[in-house]
């Protein structure tokens, strides 16, 4: 889990309105990453904040406020995701590495791999990377987001999704491989159509 950036203030002394106003912005960002849809994200954040306010008195100080709220937000978003109709998704098999009959990798030669800085300095490329992540099937996208972006451990993701650690690792591997394939033009410094 990411280090807590929040102050070490006593949450018991925060008014409901302050807690909502101070945190609703970043909670929306987290929920929207997971749910993609803005109105679903609003519903999830509403559920998360109502739950947080209800349990604020039981909140243990040793856990930091932002870490606690982050978990509640992810939980609310995952609950929402379970209830909604799944998006039409492409099979992730289309974006896996290829091998020949001798199990040798088929990979076009790379003359360069663009640096992170090069990629991030261009708005169009950043947007392309985010869209590529959003394009992944939910089962894989969620594991990738929770592990690589939100910073949760394999065991935490295992508990959330109720799947084995082995399954989390397989999904993460396939999600990363698919993302690599999808953003290859960005990594190679080519323009995406």
């Amino acid at each position: 889990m990411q280090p807590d950036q929040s102050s070490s203030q006593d949450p018991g002394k925060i008014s409901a309105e302050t807690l909502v106003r101070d945190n609703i912005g970043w909670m929306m960002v987290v929920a929207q990453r997971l749910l993609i849809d803005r109105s679903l994200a609003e519903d999830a954040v509403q559920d998360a904040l109502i739950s947080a306010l209800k349990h604020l008195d039981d909140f243990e100080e040793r856990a930091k406020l932002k870490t606690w709220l982050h978990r509640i937000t992810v939980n609310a978003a995952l609950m929402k995701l379970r209830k909604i109709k799944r998006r039409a998704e492409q099979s992730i098999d289309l974006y896996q590495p290829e091998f020949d009959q001798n199990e040798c990798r088929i990979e076009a030669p790379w003359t360069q791999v663009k640096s992170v800085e090069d990629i991030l300095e261009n708005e169009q490329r950043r947007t392309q990377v985010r869209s590529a992540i959003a394009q992944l099937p939910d089962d894989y996208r969620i594991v990738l987001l929770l592990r690589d972006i939100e910073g949760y451990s394999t065991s935490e993701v295992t508990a959330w999704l109720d799947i084995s650690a082995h399954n989390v690792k397989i999904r993460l591997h396939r999600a990363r491989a698919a993302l690599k394939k999808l953003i290859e033009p960005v990594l190679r410094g080519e323009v995406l159509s």
Partner: protein
Amino acid sequence: MTESTKIGTMRRLKGVMLKRVHGMITCREFDEFINAYLDDELTSKERTRFKMHLFMCRECRDYLAAFERTIEVGSAVFNSSDEPVPNDVPESLINTILKIREGDEHAGDKKEK
């Protein structure tokens, strides 16, 4: 011999060699090891085999470099300052949450009485 035929022949030879030489792993096996390698979860024997393959195989070297960069970029892109942050969180949403909270508190008060 065309360039693609040449590449195909070289790849076939490499594939046969990797399958037959003791202690070597194929590209497919290498691929299955990637995440464990990145998480430092390989045994020392597996790690040696992984490194030997990396030394021998240009395609897997290229692939691993791009794979690692993908992870870095994926993570960094959401930490960059232009991620669409909903500054425009609707006031109505905030009010709804606070009203529900107020209602819950009043319900709790009534129960206590």
